[in-house]
């Protein structure tokens, strides 16, 4: 049996498909329940009850929403570029799924444990702009176009500081492999020595995923719904799924870079009993909770404030932090030597 799966081409392909499904199915269920979690948590913070009609505690609400969305009619505006209009949501959705290939849920437990894992993540997340830009342009609508312009500018701006913060983490790790990044935090999670950039990274992640208080691209008071204003039915649903999958992805990234991934807080007896994937899920859930908490707490930024924060505060700070980290590691001799060896 093992021979069939590891040695023959057909077996390998079947194995690959199974591995992919093992990541994607829990992810999609996670997205479904994230929407419920968001509504429940927001409701609790605003002293409401939230969805509680469909199923026990509203547990079936996500599926009711999904069915409603699927049976609606897909409307394509008359002036829209049909092919690109329909292509954009698929692109956005596919990219959100693609990034999960490299996320390790345990020691070596990833669909693809590649050497340039973190660069792969950066590459895929930088592609996310296209889904939005194409959607905005192909809709042939002012609101959609303005929304997509904002979204693209916002994502490109915050990617810069995210990149620089990742570089400072990588300096301390000495490898681009996500597995190595987690293993380097055996003794201390990076969120403690790098606390300021941990916070900046989290805020940048909010901006990168277009979440409140940085949800300018879909600012409903000015742009109705932003880049997906013309979308309905399943096409809208794909954007929605992509956005929430990206939220989970960013939380996973924060957990891996700063919160020790699948590692327990302290490597002693009671903590080591819990399997690694559960630790990672707990950390992701914590990050998601903070995402929702922030949404329920802060009012939306103005567009120029957003840009100023990105370029004039976060970028210089993360640049200085990167140089400082390099200098500190160099002076104290802690710089990982022989890094990047297989």
């Amino acid at each position, binding site marked *: 049996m093992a021979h069939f799966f590891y040695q023959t081409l057909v077996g390998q392909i079947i194995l690959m498909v199974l591995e992919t499904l093992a990541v994607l199915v829990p992810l999609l269920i996670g997205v479904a329940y994230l929407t419920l979690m968001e509504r429940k948590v927001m409701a609790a913070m605003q002293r409401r009850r939230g969805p509680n009609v469909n199923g026990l505690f509203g547990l079936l609400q996500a599926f009711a929403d999904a069915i409603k969305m699927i049976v609606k009619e897909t409307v394509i505006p008359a002036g829209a570029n049909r092919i690109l209009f329909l292509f954009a949501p698929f692109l956005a959705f596919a990219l959100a799924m693609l990034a999960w290939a490299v996320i390790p849920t345990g020691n070596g437990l990833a669909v693809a444990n590649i*050497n340039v894992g973190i660069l792969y993540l950066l590459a895929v997340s930088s592609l996310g702009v*296209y889904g939005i830009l194409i959607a905005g*342009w192909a809709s042939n609508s002012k609101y959609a176009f303005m929304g997509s312009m904002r979204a*693209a500018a916002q994502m490109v701006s915050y*990617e810069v500081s995210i990149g620089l913060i990742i570089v400072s983490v990588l300096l301390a790790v000495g490898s681009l492999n996500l597995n190595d990044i987690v293993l380097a935090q055996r003794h201390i999670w990076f969120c403690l020595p790098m606390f300021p950039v941990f916070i900046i990274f989290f805020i940048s992640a909010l901006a990168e995923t277009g979440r409140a208080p940085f949800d300018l691209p879909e600012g409903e008071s000015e742009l109705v719904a932003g880049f997906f204003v013309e979308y309905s039915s399943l096409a809208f649903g794909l954007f929605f799924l992509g956005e929430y999958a990206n939220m989970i992805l960013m939380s996973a990234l924060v957990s891996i870079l700063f919160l020790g991934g699948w590692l327990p807080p302290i490597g002693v007896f009671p903590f080591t009993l819990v399997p690694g994937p559960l630790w990672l899920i707990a950390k992701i859930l914590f990050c998601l909770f903070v995402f929702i908490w922030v949404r329920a707490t802060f009012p939306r930024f103005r567009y120029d404030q957003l840009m100023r924060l990105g370029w004039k505060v976060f970028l210089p700070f993360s640049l200085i932090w990167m140089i400082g980290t390099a200098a500190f590691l160099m002076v104290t001799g802690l710089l990982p030597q022989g890094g990047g060896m*297989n």
Partner: protein
Amino acid sequence: MLPQLVFYLFSTVLLISAVMVISARNPVHSVLFLIVAFFNAAGLFLVAGAEFLAMLLVIVYVGAVAVLFLFVVMMLDIDFTKLREGLQQHAAIGVCFGVVLFAELLVAVGNWHMSSVSVTRLSGAPGQTNTAALGDLIYTHYILLFQGCGLILLVAMIGAIVLTLRPVGSGRRQIIDKQHARVPSETLEMIDAPLGVGVISQGGFLRPHTSYHETSVPDSYASGGQIEADKKEKDV
């Protein structure tokens, strides 16, 4: 077997999309095909074992450069019929350039000798990832050239800033401290308006009789303007 197949798949799509870049009528489609081409080039790097370069190509070219292209091209207001008008006039010059370039290509390809040795993979010393190998090359052996590249980019960046810099003091500027220092007592005036009495004399406002549109664009109403329209309304 599989690497060859993947190589031919990537290179076929790369060539087709490269042709589409110049043959697509819509410039936005051209840029999107360019992105597909970049993406397949990254795939080719992966096949050659240069994973770091592949990711860098996607991050830099697809993630940043092509986004700017797309920005600019989406904003363009192009009249397609006008574009095609010039084709006839410039055809002769175009053909000349084409012939010269094609001849040069022929000469170059004609003198190309395929190496009999198969190409080694693009990774460094055994056991070293190609990120480390590349870093070793750039930062240890060719550091001066690398710094030179950086300087050139710096000059380009400063140039771009100088070109787009507006003189200080022009344009609207937000002074955040001043905004934050505002207190209600400075900006708010409480008016005690008795019931049933108009507030106009005490600082309230009425809607202007002629609309903004009427005053700024004279004769913008088909007949008689706002005043006439008001009269009509009264009669009804």
